[in-house]
């Protein structure tokens, strides 16, 4: 019997193994859609319980990742709809981080630049509207296919593609704006 089947039958240790596999996906998706750690923790907790309660309704193991992402996305949207979400982490902090990508070099320095760039990008993500954030996080960060994203968000594939295009354009505009405001780029 696979881990998935055992967990479906209520085996707690099998469920814990599945949780270990997917907890980062849940937490990171929530964090990127909600924009702060506190809400992401709450949603992760809530989603894990929903998964445990409803795992038997996931038809097959191959669909598990998308199924979990869908539950996570719905939980995030519920939180935002209720207006209970906290403020996204301040961009003032993240905005202090430069993107001296042109000066990238090999080694530890490159790693540092990459880390800074990552934080800068995450900061820019929080400026997007939540539905755009979810699209970008699902497709570009979590690597779901367009079809999976469409299934998770309950949208036609064409709409996913067009909205994603708009989301990326908006993100690009935000990043360019931030670069303009960064004295190191002037």
């Amino acid at each position, binding site marked *: 019997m696979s881990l998935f089947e055992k967990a479906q039958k*209520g085996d*707690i240790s099998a*469920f*814990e193994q599945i*949780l*270990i596999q997917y*907890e*980062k996906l849940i*937490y*990171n998706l929530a*964090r990127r859609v909600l924009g702060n*750690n506190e809400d992401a*923790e709450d949603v*992760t*907790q809530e989603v*894990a*319980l929903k998964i*445990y*309660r409803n795992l038997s309704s996931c038809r097959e193991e191959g669909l598990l990742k998308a199924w979990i992402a869908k539950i996570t996305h719905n939980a995030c949207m519920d939180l935002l709809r209720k207006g209970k979400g906290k403020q996204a982490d301040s961009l003032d902090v993240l905005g202090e981080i430069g*993107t001296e*990508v*042109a*000066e*990238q*070099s090999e080694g530890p320095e490159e790693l540092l630049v*990459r*880390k800074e*760039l*990552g934080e800068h*990008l*995450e900061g820019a993500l929080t400026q997007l509207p939540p539905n755009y954030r979810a699209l*970008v996080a699902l497709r*570009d*960060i979590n*690597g779901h296919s367009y079809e999976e994203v469409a299934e998770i968000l309950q949208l036609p594939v064409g709409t996913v593609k067009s909205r994603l295009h708009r989301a*990326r354009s908006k*993100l*690009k505009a935000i*990043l360019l704006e931030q670069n303009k405001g960064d004295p190191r780029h002037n």
Partner: protein
Amino acid sequence: MIDKDNNEMISIEELLADLPDHDLPGGLRAKIMQDVRVVRRKKSALQFVKSFGAGSAAVLVLVLWFVWWTSALPEAPSGAEPAAFASGEVSHLSRSWVGDDFNDFVTTTLWVEDFAPSIAEIESLPEGTATIAAEGDDPEQLVITIQITDDNFLLIQQTLQNMDIYLGIEPDTEISILLIKIQ
């Protein structure tokens, strides 16, 4: 979008795909698993209640067993309502609870196996508070009576967790627990 040294252009998609994962905050998984165990107990209890209602013969056998089992317990003090202990009153039970396996203790000893007949009652109880009382001063022969007026298993678990403050039971100690519905 961004020029690197070699003038290679990087798309936003590529940049985002490179974003590192954030680690789960410490202790969150343990917290989740604790919640999951509570849900599991509720599910087990509900399943039992369903199967309990499914066969009248099984119900009869269990009711008879429960009646026999409760009659075998030492009689409750007169007044039939055990008093809640204050911590000082049981200070003679000096052994302290040290188990991380408290959940296993509750699952196997209280909810699912030995005390299933009481679960149907707990499910239908109104909201309220719980009180705990105990008889006997030998932890291995202890009879504990818990009055529960709350159908929230989590609260019951919290109450039981508080019990170690009062009673100091070791993890492997076999104890008998009688759940009483308060009208």
